[in-house]
């Protein structure tokens, strides 16, 4: 039962804690994911701005060089020496050749990034800025790409992609070439081709100087999608690496996610102004956010911290809520076990507080009800007992009156007077103004009168001594306890004994240790037949049962009275016979009422019961008996001097 209750309370608290945990954890997860997303978005935005700036910077740089090359070409187009050189016939070129070369030389000297400035006439005859340079004998300039492209659109500059310049003997430089068809200033006829080579190294340096995250990089493509520069050109040509160049050419946006399988990168594209090229910045998506790892770890840490705090709080809150409920349940359990004095002391201004108040009201009501029932029961019991007392008395009265009649008839005047007086006293005492609690003194007086009557009836066959110390007489007792015991001693002990019998009534005060109430022990001793062990045990058991069970049940009490009345007829003959032979006084009816198969009469049990009812189960009767030697009944009473409520 307690197990079931425990598991029940367990589940309330745990369920609540879990519910809180789930809710708060979900909220935390959502909040952290959201704020992380925001942080990341912000970082991404700033990274985007940063990348855009870098790419624009690179584009501007490259543009500047292209612009520079273009201005060289414009300068040469308009230069008179160059025009003169190209217009002259081969034979007459000697002087103009020298001047033209000087022009080219001036240009290349001003700029280290230009590796070659060359002029080719329509026959492909070259003029280099440096006289020592030789044309590659295996290459015809007129068939080279730059030459053809320039020829196709006279007057315009053509910018090649990056390539190996193979026009010089023994020199293979990576360059970007500008080629332009030089036209005559006079008749606009094509005179020759200008070739300006920009060191590719320069482009490479510009592009590779930029770091986009740890792995990001920059590359350049021309209008046809050919790579001008790419740090991993070889990997791309061998197919180990891919760039989505068509996407770059088609997409209008300048910042977008590259559609490349297995690569999560972002392209940032910037067009050049002077040439149909695009500078493309490649950002790895996972590197967009600077120290992303750090941010993530921080968030994770906070997440775990909030996580644990929320779970802890959930447990605490659940405990806080479930604790009064638990306390209420504990009170309830005590009530269940029969403790109605318990009150729940929960002072909360909520439903549980109300519940506790209602609980208290309920328990109080139950307690009151129970008390009332108990009171009623006790009152009923007492009245029953009183009725029983009333029942006993008439038998005795009947017997005594019968004896008086017999004595009066026999002319024994003094005995009649004595007996009548004793009877009167006895009744006065037993009435005792209706009180149930009397002093021991009055009780002793009561039994003395009774014995006086019996002494007259039994004469020599009965002797008695009353040895109650004087100090006891003021103590309180339940009334009519000695008389039934004495009666019992006479009828069961002495009467069945052949010779004369003695009844001794005594008592003493027993001091109990500090804290406990002192006790009074009275006794009624006879030297009658006594009881055999079996009878004694049965009697003790009966007294014990009364003691243990408190109030005997209705049916048991009824059974007794019934057995008593039944016995009164069956034992009639035996008693009257004995009585007749010994006293010469017929005691038929009186004897009938006090004999029977039951050795211990209803009166004895009655006495014990009443003592226990008024003073508690610790008090009552104790029997000592030895067969053939006699019986002693001890009466344990509390030592009470003051009046007590009945």
């Amino acid at each position, binding site marked *: 039962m307690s197990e079931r209750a425990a598991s029940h309370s367990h589940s309330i608290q745990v369920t609540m804690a879990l519910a809180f945990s*789930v809710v708060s*954890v979900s909220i935390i*997860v959502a909040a952290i994911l959201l704020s992380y997303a925001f942080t990341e978005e912000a970082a991404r935005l700033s990274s985007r701005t940063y990348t855009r700036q870098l790419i624009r910077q690179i584009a501007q740089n490259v543009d500047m060089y292209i612009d520079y090359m273009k201005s060289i070409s414009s300068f040469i187009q308009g230069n008179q020496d160059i025009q003169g050189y190209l217009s002259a016939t081969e034979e007459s070129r000697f002087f103009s050749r020298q001047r033209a070369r000087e022009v080219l030389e001036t240009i290349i000297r001003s700029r280290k990034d230009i590796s070659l400035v060359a002029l080719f006439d329509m026959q492909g005859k070259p003029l280099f800025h440096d006289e020592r340079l030789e044309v590659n004998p295996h290459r015809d300039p007129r068939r080279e790409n730059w030459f053809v492209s320039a020829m196709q659109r006279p007057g315009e500059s053509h910018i090649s992609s990056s390539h190996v310049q193979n026009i010089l003997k023994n020199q293979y*430089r990576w360059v970007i070439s500008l080629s332009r068809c030089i036209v005559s200033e006079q008749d606009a006829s094509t005179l020759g081709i200008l070739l300006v080579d920009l060191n590719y190294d320069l482009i490479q340096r510009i592009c590779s100087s930029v770091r986009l995250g*740890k792995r990001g990089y920059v590359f350049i493509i021309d209008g046809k999608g050919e790579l001008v520069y790419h740090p991993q050109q*070889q990997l791309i040509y*061998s197919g180990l690496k891919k760039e989505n160049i068509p996407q770059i050419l088609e997409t209008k946006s300048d910042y977008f996610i590259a559609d490349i399988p297995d690569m999560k990168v972002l392209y940032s594209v910037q067009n050049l102004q002077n040439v149909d090229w695009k500078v493309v910045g490649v950002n790895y998506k996972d590197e967009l956010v600077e120290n992303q790892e750090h941010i993530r770890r921080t968030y*994770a840490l906070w997440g775990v911290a909030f*996580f644990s705090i929320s779970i802890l709080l959930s447990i605490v809150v659940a405990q806080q809520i479930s604790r009064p409920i638990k306390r209420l349940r504990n009170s309830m359990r005590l009530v269940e076990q029969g403790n109605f004095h318990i009150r729940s002391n929960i002072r909360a201004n909520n439903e549980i507080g109300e519940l506790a108040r209602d609980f208290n009201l309920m328990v109080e009501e139950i307690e009151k009800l129970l008390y009332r029932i108990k009171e009623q029961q006790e009152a009923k019991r007492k009245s029953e007992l009183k009725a029983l007392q009333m029942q006993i008395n008439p038998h005795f009265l009947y017997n005594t009156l019968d004896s008086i009649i017999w004595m009066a008839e026999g002319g024994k005047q003094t005995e009649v007077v004595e007996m009548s007086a004793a009877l009167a006293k006895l009744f006065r005492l037993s009435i005792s103004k209706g009180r149930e609690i009397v002093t021991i003194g009055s009780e002793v007086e009561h039994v003395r009168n009774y014995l006086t009557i019996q002494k007259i009836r039994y004469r020599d066959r009965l002797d008695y001594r009353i040895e109650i110390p004087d100090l006891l007489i003021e103590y309180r007792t339940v009334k009519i306890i000695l008389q039934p015991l004495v009666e019992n001693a006479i009828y069961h002990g002495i009467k069945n004994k052949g010779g004369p019998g003695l009844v001794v009534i005594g008592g003493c005060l027993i001091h109990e240790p500090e804290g406990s109430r002192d006790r009074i022990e009275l006794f009624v001793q006879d030297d009658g037949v006594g009881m055999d062990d079996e009878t004694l045990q049965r009697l003790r058991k009966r007294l014990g049962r009364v003691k243990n069970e408190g109030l005997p049940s209705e049916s048991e009490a009824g059974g007794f009275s019934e057995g008593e009345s039944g016995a009164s007829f069956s034992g009639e003959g035996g008693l009257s016979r004995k009585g007749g032979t010994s006293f010469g006084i017929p005691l038929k009816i009186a004897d009938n009422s006090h004999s029977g198969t039951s050795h211990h009469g209803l009166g004895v049990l009655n006495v014990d019961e009443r003592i226990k009812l008024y003073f508690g189960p610790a008090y009552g009767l104790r029997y000592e008996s030895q067969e053939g030697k006699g019986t002693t009944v001890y009466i344990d009473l509390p030592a009470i001097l003051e009046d007590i409520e009945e």
Partner: protein
Amino acid sequence: MKRRTVFIVPAILLFLLFTGIFIILYFTQTPFPQKEIRVVAVLKTIDTNMEFWEVVKTAMRMAANELGIGLEIVGPPDESDIESQIRIMEAVIQQKPSVIILAATDRERLVPLVEKAHHQRIPVITLDSGVKSPLPRTFVATNNVEAARELARYAQNHIPPESMVAIVNHIPGATTAIEREQGVRSILEKDPRFTIIGTYFTDNFEENAYTIARSLMNQYPRLRALLAMNEVSVIGCARAIRDLEKKGKVQLYGFDNSLVEVQFLEEGVLNATVIQRPFTMGYLSVQIAVDVLRGKTFPSFTDTGSVLITPENMYYPEHQKLLFPFVK
């Protein structure tokens, strides 16, 4: 009722636990900080004049940077210094790197060291030149047989019929020599139009190649093509053809890449050359090294491919970077 609650409580607790783990995993991606990967490449030589190995090194560094790993490149000063490489390899194993990439100077003599590394649980990948052992996780190199077949197929279509051809090879027994000759022969021997007059070894001396080519051309007037199996042989043969003014009459097909070869290509003396992809080799070897550490398995041989270069296609954008890997 009671039984159900018994199951619900652990279920919810598990759910919470998983949620927690999920967040941590989501934010940190890798719950345990990765141990830094340290790759050591033991190359045939660290001579900076060797363009091939310079390209390999550049590619390796690029891959290492991209993958975010530590890379150390070591090697003897000279390709023929086997002893030196063995010593270097010993030292490298002592350092206990994560992976070793080895370009062996000798097929046989480096086997014990590969075994030693294997015993110390250091994976080994061989690059360009392998060892005679099944232990390396993969061998990253050019498939020489396939490269030679490509060259032979091209030659087949360009050599006039009823011709004699000769193979000029470098060192008998060298892996490249055997494989390339095997590839060439597998194509040309089947073609009834051609007669292979034989294989001639130069012992990797240009002068020998020159002499052999000269004498062959003098000896066999019907000799229409020379197939030279490495750079030294190609240059020797090309010189001989030029000197005897046999350009166009005796064709030359070769291997490898150098500035001199480029010039012979431009000149038209060299009709075609098959070149390797050192950049791919270097890049892939590092990438594979990292993948091996992550538990990936590879076939015993990883072909990095080859490219057939002719005077016509040599200035194609995709070939310029192969022929002229460095910006000067």
